[in-house]
């Protein structure tokens, strides 16, 4: 356990230095910095496994060619204001510039927000309830017209306050003080939307209900990318998105194919994070997942857009072939895969019984279903390593080999008054094979100390509405352990933790704090953190929250999930962006 | 090969055996006979005795390689067993033709009756369709189909049983064959139609001076038509002779059985005087000795020879041949004293 994390930290550390050395803090120089990377990063053909994790692989200034993406699924929408897919928050930056975005750097440096449409980070008022952003001047849409502050306001209004655009998150609706605003489709007068003000064409002011120190993270969401009211066609807007990025829509057949071409009205001088290498970008939707892997390996396409990695057949090929393995990277996803123990179900209401589980679990066995070490690092905290504020610690060291410390487990069983173990239920989404296998591994682990688990399977469709997310149901059915996963919408401690550990978020249905942890200290720390504007101090608080949560012993991480993504030799300027856990889609180029 | 035959048709020791999974089926096992133009041979025997296999063998329809054929078939001076398949094919339809058992299944369901006759005609006559069609209508008329010009385009299923049989005859006769084999041409027809069909065949035979083989279970049919009669049992000829020989002086116990079981007008058709007990012999494991011995009431009178020795087909007198171990005198006295009175008494 410890070893893995030390390595992971070391990798991140290297990434940080390399990024700083190569890119001089920002990626602003574009072509220049990438050739610098090329010099230090080594020649392209010698790229090794995980190289793109710490540096830019195949750095190249060569423009032209067609960059081909394939997706096995279809997107919720290609409308930047109407999507919740992580890959799309990455991809949409090719044509949509939000107020802020993440620095174009591998490693920790990439988790830093930098200005995009805005000139700088938001300026918070003293009470923390007003956030002001100044727009850069001279940023144009692909039709040559200039971006106005009102377009940002309109974009927020349409994406958060309409019944039609349902696919994206609704954080702005949640945090902005907008009264009873009905949204721009019912109320065409934008002046009625009081949550955002535009005193002039280059200033956007957000009015919040309560102080929220991580507001900058919210405006890094593609929903803050401007949309001219006159161009909005509602749910159909995804066919004709107006571009502010280096590429614009050529054609979009929904659910089938998207073609992008260079946007001549995009100005590199205003953009510190993107490149404009290929002439065209083509995306095919609904492609056979296995075939995507084969096409990647044959060099016929360049990127699996979803960024969730190879299928099992593809993984097997990579594991068997060192040359292929060198063409892969193994980044963290934002996901923690864990078990929650209900503090309201006997005997898990006793902390010692929970601790017994922590010690008795064979974490190598519970790591296996995710694909072993390639599928994730063994986890010991609630936050994941690519969360800002993450600190490594392990409160329940379960043996040097992570296979469980049965002596300690038995001590805690005795302390809990169940020296011979007990019977309990573990709830799992029955249609998720990996999670079922984890439940079985857990069952076998705990059996060693006399804890007899019965696996209860529920459908994933209503998992959170009817089953594990419904405390009543959990109590009635004595669901002591629930196997779940969580990935944050933005990589901060608050983004990750608030929904799953805040006692005030325990809901009668759709509850993600399944352990029903309602610790006053945790709740207060979360409030304190979100009001702390100094980011260093704030990040300390998130680490503290994590510790408190782990002290409750109700949360047990199995793995910090990783993916195995393939990097074809003909792909240039490739690095893993830590904020997305996939390649930075705005940097890629192709060899011709 | 022995010397060419003087007769129009002659079979010499014909054997047609089928290798099957269960063993070798000896459907025809050493059959010989002669037939001249203008003459009629009746072949009688129970189901499975090899009558159809014999006729198909003559037509060369067992030459697809699956059957083992030996012996000789002489037709108008040509030997057919050793002749090429293709040559025999050119003889079929024209030189020799066959009226098949069960005309419903023997005619193609998807083609009109007329077109099937036209096809048969045009194989051997280089004429246009219209001419062939006229000929087909003509033939249908001659076999007694009413309104042949209308019925010519009907499909077999639109014909009644008797009409189908007539159409079958029309088809077989369309090229004036010199040898006509009629395989149970009247089974399943009612008595009046039967008589009409038989009359028709003899008329046509007379007209073309062809040789005719009539195959049947029904001795009544052969009695009317035949010059000679061949009684088959288990793939072999057991008795051969003129119609008179067979009807008035039969010498083989199996023939007695057949005569005894002949349906007559004064009896219920199903009621039989001397039913032949038991079932036809297996053609694979032929009983030792005489194939008929398990069913024969006289096997006990041969001092064991019936069950040990295969009887030979021997001439009793004047071309009358019998295959039986019973001494000739005994055969005659059994017929005269035991069988004949019993048949006459009813």
């Amino acid at each position: 356990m410890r070893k893995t994390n030390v390595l992971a930290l070391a990798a991140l550390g290297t990434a940080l230095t390399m990024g700083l050395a190569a890119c001089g803090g920002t990626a602003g120089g574009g072509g220049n910095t990438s050739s610098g990377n090329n010099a230090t990063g080594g020649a392209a053909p010698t790229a090794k496994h995980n190289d793109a994790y710490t540096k830019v692989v195949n750095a190249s200034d060569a423009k032209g060619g067609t960059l081909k993406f394939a997706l096995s699924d279809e997107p919720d929408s290609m409308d930047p204001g109407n999507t919740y897919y992580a890959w799309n928050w990455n991809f949409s930056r090719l044509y949509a510039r939000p107020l802020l975005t993440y620095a174009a750097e591998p490693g920790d440096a990439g988790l830093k927000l930098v200005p995009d449409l805005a000139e700088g980070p938001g300026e918070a008022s003293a009470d923390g309830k007003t956030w002001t952003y100044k727009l850069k001047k001279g940023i144009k849409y692909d039709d040559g017209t200039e971006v106005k502050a009102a377009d940002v306001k309109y974009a927020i209004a349409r994406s958060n306050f309409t019944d039609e655009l349902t696919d994206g998150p609704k954080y702005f609706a949640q945090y902005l003080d907008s009264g009873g605003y009905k949204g721009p489709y019912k109320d065409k007068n934008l002046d009625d939307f009081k949550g955002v003000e535009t005193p002039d064409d280059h200033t956007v002011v957000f009015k919040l209900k309560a102080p929220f120190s991580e507001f900058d993270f919210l405006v890094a969401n593609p929903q803050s990318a401007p949309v001219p009211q006159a161009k909005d066609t509602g749910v159909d807007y995804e066919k004709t998105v107006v571009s502010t990025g280096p590429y614009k829509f050529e054609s979009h057949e929904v659910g089938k194919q998207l073609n992008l071409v260079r946007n001549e009205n995009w100005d590199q001088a205003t953009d510190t994070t993107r490149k404009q290498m290929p002439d065209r970008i083509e995306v095919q939707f609904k492609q056979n997942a296995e075939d995507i892997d084969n096409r990647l390996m044959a060099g016929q396409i360049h990127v699996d857009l979803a960024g969730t990695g190879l299928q099992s057949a593809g993984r097997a090929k990579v594991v068997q072939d060192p040359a292929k393995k060198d063409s892969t990277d193994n980044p963290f996803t934002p996901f923690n895969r864990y078990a929650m123990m209900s503090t309201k179900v006997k005997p898990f209401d006793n902390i010692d019984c929970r601790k017994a589980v922590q010690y008795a679990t064979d974490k190598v066995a519970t790591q296996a279903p995710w694909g072993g070490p390639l599928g994730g690092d063994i986890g010991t905290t609630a936050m994941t390593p690519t969360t800002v504020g993450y600190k490594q610690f392990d409160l329940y060291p379960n043996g040097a080999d992570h296979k469980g410390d049965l002596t300690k487990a038995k001590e805690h069983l005795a302390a809990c008054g169940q020296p011979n173990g007990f019977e309990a239920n573990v709830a799992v989404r029955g249609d998720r094979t990996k999670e079922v296998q984890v439940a079985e591994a857990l069952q076998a682990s705990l059996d060693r100390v006399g804890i007899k688990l019965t696996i209860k399977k529920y459908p994933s469709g209503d998992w959170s509405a009817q089953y594990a997310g419904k405390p009543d149901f959990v109590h009635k059915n004595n669901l002591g352990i629930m196997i779940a996963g969580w990935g944050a919408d933005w990589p901060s401690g608050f983004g990750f933790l608030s929904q799953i550990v805040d006692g005030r978020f325990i809901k009668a249905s759709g509850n993600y704090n399944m352990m029903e942890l309602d610790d006053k200290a945790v709740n207060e720390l979360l409030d304190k953190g979100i009001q702390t504007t100094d980011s260093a101090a704030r990040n300390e608080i998130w680490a503290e929250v994590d510790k408190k949560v782990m002290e409750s012993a109700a949360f047990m991480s199995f793995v910090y999930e990783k993916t195995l993504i393939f990097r074809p030799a003909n792909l240039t300027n490739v690095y893993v962006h830590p904020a997305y856990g996939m390649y930075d889609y705005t940097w890629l180029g192709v060899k011709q | 090969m022995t010397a060419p035959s003087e007769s129009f048709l002659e079979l010499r020791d014909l054997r047609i055996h089928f290798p099957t999974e269960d063993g070798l089926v000896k459907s025809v096992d050493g059959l010989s006979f002669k037939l001249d133009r203008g003459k009629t041979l009746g072949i009688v025997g129970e189901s499975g005795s090899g009558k159809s296999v014999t006729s198909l063998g003559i037509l060369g329809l067992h030459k697809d390689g699956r059957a083992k054929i030996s012996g000789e078939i002489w037709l108008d001076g040509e030997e057919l067993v050793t002749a090429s398949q293709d040559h025999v094919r050119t003889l079929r339809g024209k030189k020799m033709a066959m009226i098949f058992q069960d005309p419903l299944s023997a005619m193609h369901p998807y083609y009109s009756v007329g077109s099937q006759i036209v096809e048969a005609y045009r194989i051997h006559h280089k004429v246009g369709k219209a001419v062939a069609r006229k000929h087909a209508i003509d033939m249908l008329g001659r076999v007694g189909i009413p309104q042949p010009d209308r019925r010519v385009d009907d499909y077999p299923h639109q014909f009644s049983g008797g009409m189908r049989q007539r159409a079958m005859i029309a088809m077989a006769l369309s090229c004036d064959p010199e040898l006509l084999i009629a395989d149970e041409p009247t089974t399943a027809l009612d008595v009046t139609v039967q008589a009409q069909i038989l009359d028709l065949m003899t008329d046509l035979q007379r007209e073309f001076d062809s040789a005719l083989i009539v195959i049947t279970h029904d001795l009544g049919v052969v009695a009317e038509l035949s010059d000679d009669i061949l009684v088959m049992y288990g793939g072999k000829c057991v008795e051969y002779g003129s119609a008179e020989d067979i009807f008035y002086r039969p010498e083989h116990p199996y023939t007695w059985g057949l005569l005894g079981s002949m349906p007559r007008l004064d009896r219920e058709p199903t009621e039989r005087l001397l039913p032949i007990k038991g079932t036809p012999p297996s053609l694979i494991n032929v009983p030792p000795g005489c194939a008929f011995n398990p069913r024969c009431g006289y096997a006990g009178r041969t001092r064991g020879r019936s069950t040990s020795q295969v009887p030979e087909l021997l001439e009793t007198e004047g071309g009358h041949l019998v295959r039986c171990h019973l001494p000739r005198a005994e055969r005659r006295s059994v017929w005269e004293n035991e069988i004949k009175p019993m048949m006459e008494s009813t």
Partner: protein
Amino acid sequence: MPGSDPPGHPGRTIVVAFIVRRVIAAVLMLAVVSMATFAIFFLIPRALGQTPEGMASRYVGRDATPEAIQGAVKRLHLDDPLLVQYGRFAKGIVAGQDYSLGPKKAECPAPCFGFSFNNNQPVWPTLLDRLPATLSLALGAAVIWLVTGVSIGVVSALRRGSVLDRAAMTVALAGVSLPIYFTGLVSLSVFAYTLGIFPGGGSYTPFTENPVMWFQALVLPWITLAFLYAALYARLTRAGMLETMGEDYIRTARAKGLKERTVVTKHALRATLTPILTIFGLDLGLLLGGAVLTESTFSIQGIGKLVIDAIRGNDLPVVLGVTLFAAFFIVLANLIVDVLYAVVDPRVRLS
């Protein structure tokens, strides 16, 4: 009197009356099919306790707010009584309907199968857009499998027990038992990614755009799909041919002195192919409703790919649209087969 019927082919009035009757039956059947699909999607989940909100939550983003879910319920009319929902659907087909895109309404002229719950696209144009791919795949494969399957079946039957027969039947057994998913991926990996003879998955291009590319991209899917059916048809043809060759009328044909070739082609094949034609019509009709596995394996955006994705995504309007579309093709194929059968086999009457 059997002779009083018009001989041979069915009369025109009979055919017309027959078709009219069948069309009415088909419309009724389509209505039943659509109701059944509706019931599977709405009635059964509701009976199992699902609320309109639970249903709507599938069509909105992750962790949607209650307001967003309520909005979706209203917009998709999920809270209406089932009959009203069905009525709206049926009316849409006949009279068209409107749909809120946000700033304005989209008009959906008849036949309007509604809008996808998942991507808000009108279903009918989507179906029409996907049809050419499915047609290309199905018809091309059908030609291949009919020609190869039947010829292999015939040759196998005529040379029963030969090495050729045994080899063909072994391959056919493999063809029948290997899943398309497997044969498709293997053929792609060999011919597209290793040898590079054919383009890889996802390369289907409409004929009207680039006929050469259309052809090249379809060769592997055609062969993969045809392999399965050819195997089936070879076995069917062989069995049928063996049976037919034993028929009395074949013996009759030979007894007439016909050449063996004529006996096989004119007499045996016709009888063998007639039942196969029926199966062929139905198979083709089914395939026009989408070759799900082949389309998925080769990433061809046809009807089959559309419906399987729609089922996975609980996209009722699309599922309903494809179901009706597919049912229509099956009904049509049935009708054509029945008429054809009556034409081919004089014993069959239309009734």
